[in-house]
């Protein structure tokens, strides 16, 4: 049994397919587990208890508490409460907590000990962070069978979990679908192309500057600021931590409540500690939209940038699927309606947990990622040498895909050989020389400038590892030079039909591709 595991920036959740539907394994309050951990001496407090005790907003370390530890993955060390801690250990503490709580839930018997998981990752997560995340899972005794981008998991879950998946697939076939995963910590975007038997990522994008916590933070701060200004509260007259925590929670609730009411009130008796003044502020919808507009604009800009990168207009997107906690915020919906039109914006009822559910469906269907676009080496005179074809199966836990290319330098006179790695911008089965390419990166190595043409032998090893990172190593035999590089910004695809499914094996049984 393999589950779906969404280790989110702000919340984490395990979902599992039971019978013909997916079940979210929530905490005791019916909500995902907050990705928050607090260290009190030897005690480790994780989840809602740690989150409720944290009055500070924003991601990162707050005293002895770490909020969204995922953002520290890749760092060597992080100081928490004066103690140096390995981010992998901090993340492992959260994963362990989620696992333990899930196994205590009524769905425990369906989780098979929660030993294998399809884990979602942000599209912006780089290779070292993915490796660190896998290690953290391993520390929690969970094998990451396969990583999958959060928005890709969301669209898969949206189609697969529909009341009539086939009908939903037919409706979206040969259309561009934009998945907007606007969660508490990050905005992840994936522009997909739905084909009859598969979903392919056309372009990914995202930012961690416009997460839902940022919205709560600016609303909270703006309300306090305006009330203090209107009521001449002295700058030093601050609130108690508990009062701040309650007011921030009100900000979170009120931003949702404004979808139904023209205005909502913030009320916190004795908020200002020194004067004992009660905070009492009425926030109208337009005012909140004004407060949060910079964030919404930033998110919209990110979306537009994504569309621009592939040369698509908003009108060419047939459907926008909005998931994540921020999908319920009216300001965001309004902006998406403005960009794409209300009829093309879909906010599923399960938008808050759709990423985790999608991962669960992928695990259940034994789907395996494929490369959505070929990876090519740009040669001289506009020729492109395919290094990895589109549709190439991606390795699962413990596996890797490897390819070696032998080349000869045609013109060594400048003393270097350049390896430009590109990928077609569009989804093309047979990209032409004239097709637009997006550069993944360039690797340059030193060669013998005095060598005659076609004498210097060059070798290029291309590897895709279990973390879906493309690694290249170029070597010049005569000059005895070599360079390595890694690229994580790849697009993937998932099958949708039975014939596309490939068994996802645990690490011990995985055969390297």
């Amino acid at each position, binding site marked *: 049994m393999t589950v779906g595991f969404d280790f989110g920036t702000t919340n984490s959740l395990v979902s599992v397919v039971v019978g013909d539907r997916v079940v979210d394994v929530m905490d005791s309050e*019916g909500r995902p587990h907050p990705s928050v951990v607090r260290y009190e001496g030897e005690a480790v407090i994780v989840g809602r208890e740690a989150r409720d005790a944290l009055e500070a907003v924003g991601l990162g370390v707050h005293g002895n508490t770490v909020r969204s530890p995922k953002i520290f993955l890749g760092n060597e060390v992080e100081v928490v409460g004066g103690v140096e801690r390995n981010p992998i250990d901090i993340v492992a503490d959260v994963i362990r907590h989620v696992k333990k709580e899930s196994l205590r839930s*009524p769905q425990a018997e369906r989780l098979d000990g929660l030993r294998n998981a399809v884990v979602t990752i942000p599209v912006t997560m780089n290779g070292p962070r993915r490796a660190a995340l896998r290690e953290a899972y391993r520390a929690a005794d969970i094998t990451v069978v396969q990583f999958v981008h959060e928005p890709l998991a969301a669209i898969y879950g949206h189609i697969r979990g529909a009341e009539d998946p086939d009908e939903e697939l037919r409706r979206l076939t040969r259309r561009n679908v934009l998945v907007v995963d606007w969660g508490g910590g990050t905005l992840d975007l994936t522009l997909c192309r739905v084909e009859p038997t598969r979903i392919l990522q056309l372009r990914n994008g995202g930012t961690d500057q416009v997460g839902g916590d940022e919205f709560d933070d600016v609303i909270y701060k703006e309300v306090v600021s305006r009330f203090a200004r209107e009521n001449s509260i002295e700058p030093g007259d601050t609130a108690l931590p508990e009062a701040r925590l309650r007011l921030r929670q009100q900000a979170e609730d009120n931003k949702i409540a404004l979808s139904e009411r023209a205005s909502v009130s913030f009320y916190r008796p004795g908020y200002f500690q020194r004067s004992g003044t*009660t905070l009492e502020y009425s926030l109208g919808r337009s005012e909140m939209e004004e407060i949060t507009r910079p964030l919404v604009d930033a998110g919209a800009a990110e979306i537009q940038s994504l569309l621009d990168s592939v040369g698509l207009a908003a009108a060419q997107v047939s459907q926008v699927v909005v998931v994540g906690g921020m999908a319920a915020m009216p300001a965001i919906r309004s902006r998406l309606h403005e960009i794409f039109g209300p009829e093309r914006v879909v906010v599923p009822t399960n938008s808050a947990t759709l990423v985790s559910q999608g991962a669960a469906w992928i695990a259940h269907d034994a789907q395996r990622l494929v490369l959505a676009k070929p990876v090519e080496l740009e040669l001289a005179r506009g020729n492109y040498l395919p290094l990895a074809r589109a549709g190439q199966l991606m390795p699962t836990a413990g596996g890797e895909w490897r390819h070696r290319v032998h080349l000869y330098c045609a013109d060594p006179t400048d003393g270097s050989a350049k390896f430009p790695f590109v990928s077609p911008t569009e989804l093309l089965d047979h990209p032409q020389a004239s097709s637009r390419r997006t550069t993944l990166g360039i690797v340059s190595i030193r060669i013998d400038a005095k060598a005659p043409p076609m004498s210097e032998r060059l070798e290029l090893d291309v590897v895709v590892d279990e973390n879906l990172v493309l690694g290249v190593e170029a070597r010049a035999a005569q000059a005895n030079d070599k360079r390595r590089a890694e690229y994580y910004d790849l697009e993937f695809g998932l099958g949708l039909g039975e014939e596309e499914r490939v068994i996802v094996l645990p690490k011990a049984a995985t055969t390297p591709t």
Partner: protein
Amino acid sequence: MTRNTEDPGDAVSPPLPDEATRGVTKQKRLNRSRNARLAATAASEEAATYSVTVPPASAPPGAPSEFDKANPDTSGSIPHRPDPGLHSQPREPISTSEKDVRRVRQTSDEGDSDDVSTVAENDRGSGKARVAGRPRPTNLAEFVEAAYFTTSKFGLSAADFEILERSLAMDGSLTVERDRILELASKDQTLRGLVNLLSPISQHAPRKSPLRERISDLAIAALWHHPLFNNLTARPRTPAGLPDVSAKRIWQAAPEVAKGLGQSESQGRALRANAVTAFSLLRVIRADWTLEELVVALGGTLWASVPDSSSRSAVAAAILVGAGDHDLRVRLGVLYEWAAHATHEAEKQSSAASAASTINLRRASEAEARVAALELEVAELERDLSERGERLRLSEAQLRNEKERSSVARSHHADDYEVLRTQIVRQLSKQTDLLADGLHALRNGSHGIAEEFVDRALTAITREVANLKDDGENK
């Protein structure tokens, strides 16, 4: 013990003038025992040649033997003259049962005491023929004559043998004797004379003596002269060749030949007994045995195979041991009776073994049938077991599916419940906080805030109630 005479006039040989005057009663007793003894000789001869057992299987030990009934006049001691009265004497069956053996002993020791002692004295070489008024045979022709015409005891002393031997030396040809014996034999339809001729030779004639050879040649000529042997088998080219038949075959053929000759039933029995006896004696003589040697050999062979548990063996052995110099034919008769019994017992055992074998074969056959049936049953059971196993596997698969379905349903129900429970908890918690803040606002004069919070709380609660109702109706 006396019996009625079966056929007083069945003697074929013409009686001599003095036969009528001979005392009959004493001779009857003598003959009763002799009948059995001589028959036993024939039977023993049969056994010695390893042919089929002579006496009919229907003749139980202890009952009057067929030989006794058929040949009342062929007693162990050869009378000097044929006595027609012997043929009509009641016989006592010789039996080797304890009772009958005792009777035989009595016959030997008491009833036959006179005759036997006479014969014994003669045999012991007193040199005198004890038959009053009878001239001693001085040559072979006279001996033949005496054998064919003597009805009383007939025996030869050592002196007699010497005389006969000397006569042979003077006249080696047998032309006259052969003609004479053929003439006599033509009238000897029951072969009694032939038995008389051979009996003393077989008992007392020295081995390797020319007399044995000459007599046996004459006897063979006479034997072949009789229709029984003439019709029974082809005559060999050599004049002295014995018929190549078994005593049993002779025994079986005799009644039919007798019937063809117009003989009575008792004469037929006599012919059968005498034919077998003569045939046996001839074989003894030709083998250069004495009758005693034959008896000893047969006894040694047959007694050795007698089961120790048989009481007959002890009795018969006692007879043999105690017989002394009595007529060897008495001993041979006892031996025959025992052999007949042993053969009968062997036949019974063989029959029982055969029956047991048949039963065992039948049982084996039945067992094989049962095995086959059991194998079929096993195959049927195995097939049934296989079918049941298949059904069990299907049932197990169904059970697993059912359990899985049940588990899935349980998970769904648990999920539905958790979703509903946590949703209500969250809503109630939120609305409680909202109402608490609203109450606080109300108490502090912030009526607008209070009204809004109450309104929001009521709206949320109302919506939640409506959702719950919808869920209930949808289900």
